[in-house]
């Protein structure tokens, strides 16, 4: 078994806010990850403010037992919830360069790699889910806000290509705040085209792609591969959209609807197939795979 499955869960945010809204994500904001407090004994629910003992959180898959709030979880943690035991095999790891010579990017990358123990904002490989072999990619918000630079774009593209080659389905969990990796500039933007095209080729091959949106799925992540699933699922109460809520508010000078850009809003507006709780997710995926892999 890979060590990742034994690593301690890290809690993403411990906040005292009792807001009903999902926490606002700054556009293209990679700083958020710093707020993680890995070793707290207690977490406070962002929605209902209930204090939850961290040991309890493991059992509930980091869902508030009181109100159903889904805490953001690291990609490696999600692997445990989704993969059949001992079946996950990661792809060749890739790391970012600094194509624009963006000041401070390299050192920040280095620091983030150390802090998160991730290579970049994606964890991707092959696995089995309820026995079905599949490619599985998971965006991790703690790495530059889950933004898509060259590494995320390349890894996803390789994921779809691997799927084509081995006739496997692809499942991707998205969760990127601003979508774009600003520091990689135009290279980041082009990953939208690259991944969308990878999905297109994958579909041409007649294969099955489930896209799952988790809090938050915004910007260039939402406006490319993650909107192109044959089936699009979302966790409850995730923030899903293109423009960040702050930008929308500033641009329109309008009060945003209470449920603006939530999963529930996206479902109502016809953009999602279903909202699935974290507890049900593996079984729903298994069911969908069983329908599509005969």
């Amino acid at each position, binding site marked *: 078994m890979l060590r990742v499955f034994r690593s301690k869960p890290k809690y993403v945010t411990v906040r005292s806010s009792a807001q009903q809204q999902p926490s606002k994500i700054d556009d293209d904001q990679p700083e958020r990850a710093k707020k993680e407090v890995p070793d707290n004994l207690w977490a406070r629910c962002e929605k209902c403010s209930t204090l939850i003992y961290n040991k309890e959180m493991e059992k509930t898959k980091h869902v508030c037992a009181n109100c159903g709030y889904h805490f953001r979880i690291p990609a490696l943690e999600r692997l445990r919830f989704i993969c059949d035991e001992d079946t996950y095999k990661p792809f060749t790891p890739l790391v970012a360069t600094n194509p624009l010579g963006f000041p401070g990017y390299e050192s920040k990358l280095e620091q983030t790699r150390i802090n998160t123990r991730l290579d970049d904002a994606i964890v991707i490989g092959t696995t089995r889910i309820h026995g079905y072999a599949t490619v599985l990619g998971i965006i991790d918000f703690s790495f530059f806000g889950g933004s898509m630079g060259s590494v995320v774009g390349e890894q996803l593209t390789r994921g779809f290509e691997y799927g084509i080659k081995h006739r496997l389905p692809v499942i991707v969990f998205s969760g990127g705040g601003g979508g774009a990796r*600003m520091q990689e500039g135009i290279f980041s933007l082009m990953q*939208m085209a690259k991944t969308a095209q990878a999905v297109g080729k994958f579909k041409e091959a007649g294969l099955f792609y489930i896209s799952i949106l988790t809090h938050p799925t915004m910007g260039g992540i939402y*406006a490319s591969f993650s909107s192109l699933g044959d089936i699009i699922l979302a966790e409850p109460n995730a923030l899903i959209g293109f423009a960040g809520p702050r930008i929308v508010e500033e641009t329109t000078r309008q009060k945003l609807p209470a449920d603006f850009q939530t999963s529930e809003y996206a479902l109502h507006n016809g953009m999602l197939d279903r909202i699935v709780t974290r507890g049900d997710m593996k079984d729903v995926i298994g069911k969908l795979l069983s329908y599509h892999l005969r």
Partner: protein
Amino acid sequence: MSTVFEWEKPLVELEDKIKELRTFITDQGIDFSQELTELEHKAERLRKEIYEKLTPWQQVMMARHPKRPTTDDYVKLVFDDFIELHGDRTYRDDQAIIGGIGVFEGEPVTIIGPQKGRDTKENIARNFGLPHPEGYRKALRLMKQAERFHRPIIALIDVVGAYPGIEAEQRGQGLVIAECIEQMSFLKVPIICIITGEGGSGGALAIGVGDRILMFEHAWYSVISPEMCANILWKDSSRASEAASLLKLTPTYLLQFGIIDDVITEPLGGAHRDHNAMGLQLKAFLRRYLTEIRKIPIDELVAQRLNRFRQIGQFQERALPNLEKDGD
């Protein structure tokens, strides 16, 4: 917004002086021709000095010049005939994007492009050239129509970004951009994309997947606008100028990065100084690249198009897997 930028002022003053002198010569009949020649040489030098060394932020300003030709100007300047077609057949006709069929040197082509207004009234109707999802759906509809009838597609891109509004989000701005990008990638017709002014983020890329991607000399193309970048980096939009430099959003860089294929030079001082000359220039580039890609069998062209984007990205393989090494 003034039509004269700060950095142009010395030049504009000099040009005014020359104009005055000419009037003086005509009115008074006194021979100042030597002085005039000298001033004109000076103006020429100054012009080159200014416009050939624009900072990235000045580039952005040039791309936003209020007198800069807009998409429908190019349609008039470059195509013999044009019939605008409206609507996404789903929800709305978004006037922030225009599209239709035009004739380029005798052959029908489909033209699409975001359209800014020239005055406040038009800007309101056109939402300042910021498209809603229905604008992209219209563009996609017209592009698929083009494919059905084997017409090349010309995308003229000048857009700060997709509109960040409540209704736009409600109606799936992100989803429709993704659909546009994906479906445009596989269209079995030649596609030329030209960034004529602003190329902002996913709102530009949504109609920016082509076989040749060209860019005007004073255009910019970036993952994020300099203002928004500055806002994120320093919580200060006014530092957009610095952000513009960091983003490397000028055609020179983008050519170097292999993102675009060619730069369409503008009349000295910018496209707005001579619409007709700009039109002729655009026409020449279109002719050249359209002729070039029409020769390529369509399946090969689409394969090349996909391969082009497949190659974009810079990364390295990491030697040792982190997980095994660092696990606790």
